[in-house]
């Protein structure tokens, strides 16, 4: 028999705290669709995705109804296209992206991830074709998301790839200038990319994974914030150890809900259940914000001194709660701080509390990195590459995942606004400091070697 308080606390999480399952992502392997004939390949991947995922949305809707918890996004991730479609040219890669887009539309998912390449140590011909295809592929599709892993703790940092990507990001922004460079919002550049992330734009199905896998992304920044607010209302003198314990317990609850629903959907589809990625992922709505948690903890806003310590506390407590709740915790699992997707973080940027440099510092203790950051359109490709390289270095040296999703907004300057719409939100354009002059460092190319694993300090 359930107790009243158990039932009422769950209802409260649903009614007022935005508890939801942020995404159920079906990973589908395309590796056995390989062919050097473009039509044959695109037909095969289209058929594979549609046959595997055709019941995904219906099953998610049924689970949503059964448990009364919204499943906000249903998505598909596929094997890295640079591997699956290795024989093709960059023009042909664009056609592959368009086939993925059609398949995603056919199964009614809002995003499909996996237009991806893994180039941390070197760029193969398929990788190069995919990277060259990025601007056109992202500008001519709606649902396709791309990710490029350019660095890893084991391999080092591929500066050739980073230089190339700086240019491709500029080109992608230019092709979607009418929409503030929207194509760049669908491209993540990673260090240490996990194989099982369910969240976009970084989702792809790793080559070490099964034929089809369900990974779920649970969120719940609103639940964490309200739990802190409630506890502080009862006892205003809670210390940080007590608050950490509270976040941990809350993360446990949220993870358990995600795993239950994920397993239900996986069973319905007859595929393996992969991981729960417990990430505090905001949406551009009041009460569903990671930034608001900083304020509940007592900071004026994200970005002021103390923010990195606060984020370290949040991120660690979330991981501990998640790891206790499920043996299948994976993906990124931590806190996201995407600027445009979080009203509160976006406001902190507008008020000048948060700069790119502070964001970079924050990313050393949280999931992902410089995420959904709008910068001036006249930022050079080399400066972009420099920002990416800095972010990758943080991940490589600290043995963690980091990423960038930066949008150089064509024709707009720092202080102006960029609008991406929907979940991607809107943001003030943040200034990039110290960006004048040439950047010979990023032009040198080559590989920054992998770091030593002793003498840590």
């Amino acid at each position, binding site marked *: *028999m359930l107790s*009243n308080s158990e039932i009422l606390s769950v*209802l409260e999480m649903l009614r007022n705290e935005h508890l939801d399952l942020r995404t159920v992502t079906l990973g589908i392997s395309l590796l056995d669709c390989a062919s050097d004939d473009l039509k044959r390949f695109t037909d095969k991947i289209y058929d594979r995705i549609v046959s595997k995922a055709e019941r995904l949305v219906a099953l998610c809707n049924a689970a949503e109804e*059964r448990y009364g918890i919204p499943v906000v996004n249903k998505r598909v991730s596929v094997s890295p296209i640079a591997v699956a479609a290795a024989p093709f040219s960059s023009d042909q890669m664009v056609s592959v992206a368009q086939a993925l887009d059609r398949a995603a539309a056919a199964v009614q998912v809002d995003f499909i991830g996996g237009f991806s390449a893994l180039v941390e140590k070197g760029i193969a011909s398929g990788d190069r074709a995919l990277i060259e295809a990025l601007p056109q592929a992202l500008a001519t599709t709606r649902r396709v998301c791309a990710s490029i892993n350019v660095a890893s703790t084991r391999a080092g940092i591929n500066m050739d790839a980073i230089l190339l990507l700086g240019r491709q990001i500029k080109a992608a922004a230019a092709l979607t200038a009418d929409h503030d460079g929207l194509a760049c919002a669908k491209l993540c550049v990673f260090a240490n990319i996990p194989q099982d992330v369910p969240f976009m734009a970084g989702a792809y199905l790793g080559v070490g994974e099964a034929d089809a896998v369900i990974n779920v992304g649970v969120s719940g920044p609103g639940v964490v914030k309200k739990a802190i607010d409630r506890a502080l209302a009862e006892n205003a003198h809670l210390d940080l150890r007590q608050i950490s314990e509270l976040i941990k317990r809350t993360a446990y609850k949220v993870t358990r809900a995600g795993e239950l629903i994920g397993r239900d959907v996986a069973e319905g589809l007859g595929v393996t259940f992969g991981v729960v990625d417990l990430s505090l992922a905001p949406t551009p709505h009041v009460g569903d914000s990671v930034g608001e948690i900083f304020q509940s903890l007592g900071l004026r806003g994200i970005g002021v001194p103390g923010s990195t310590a606060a984020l370290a506390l949040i991120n660690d407590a979330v991981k501990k709660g998640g790891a206790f709740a499920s043996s299948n915790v994976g993906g990124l699992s931590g806190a996201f701080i995407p600027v445009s997707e979080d009203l509160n973080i976006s406001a902190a940027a507008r008020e000048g509390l948060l700069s790119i440099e502070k964001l970079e510092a924050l990313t050393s203790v949280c999931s992902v990195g410089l995420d959904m950051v709008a910068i001036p359109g006249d930022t050079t490709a080399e400066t972009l590459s420099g920002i990416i390289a800095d972010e990758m270095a943080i991940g490589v040296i600290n043995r963690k995942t980091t990423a960038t999703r930066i949008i150089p907004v064509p024709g707009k300057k720092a202080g102006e606004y960029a609008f991406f719409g929907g979940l991607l939100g809107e943001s003030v354009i943040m200034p990039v400091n110290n960006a004048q002059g040439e950047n010979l460092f990023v032009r040198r190319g080559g590989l920054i070697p992998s770091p030593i694993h002793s003498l840590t300090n």
Partner: protein
Amino acid sequence: MKKFIISVLGKDRPGIIAAVTQLLFQQDFNIEDVSQTILQNEFSGIFIVTGPDGSDPQNVCHALENATVDLKLHIHVKAMDAAPFQWTSASCEPFVITTRGPDRKGLVAQITAVLAAHNVNVTQLQAVFRGGADPERNVMIYEVDIPADSDLSKLRTALKTKAAELNLEVNLQHKNIFEAINRI
């Protein structure tokens, strides 16, 4: 052995269960199941017991009344069928229905009428009405068994429609979600 069900009602105070079970013990009865609850100082207990073949409900009831005369209890004893009664042959799944909203007469009657019409069985009901318009003070929680052959979405639609008429917010959720979130 014969099987009986005994219900006991009365003002709550120390000693009710002690007096009832002492008599049962003396008369060689074995308690199989017992459940008790208290609502606003009123005690209510249900005992399922087995006892000697010669015993009959009336005698048991008289003996219990005599043994608890100071406690002023209302006692009822009934013989039970040996074979368990099954209200459905379908397998059932446990769900939880919750409502919140301003108090008025007939809320339980109208919600349970919908449940009865859809062959849904209530296994636990906790309703707290403290009056007024504050929804937090007027909550009903029904734990129910829904047969696998029921149409869940029809039930949900019927509940939502009825709840809207009554100005209530209603939720129908599988019990697993509450257990997953709250229990290790």
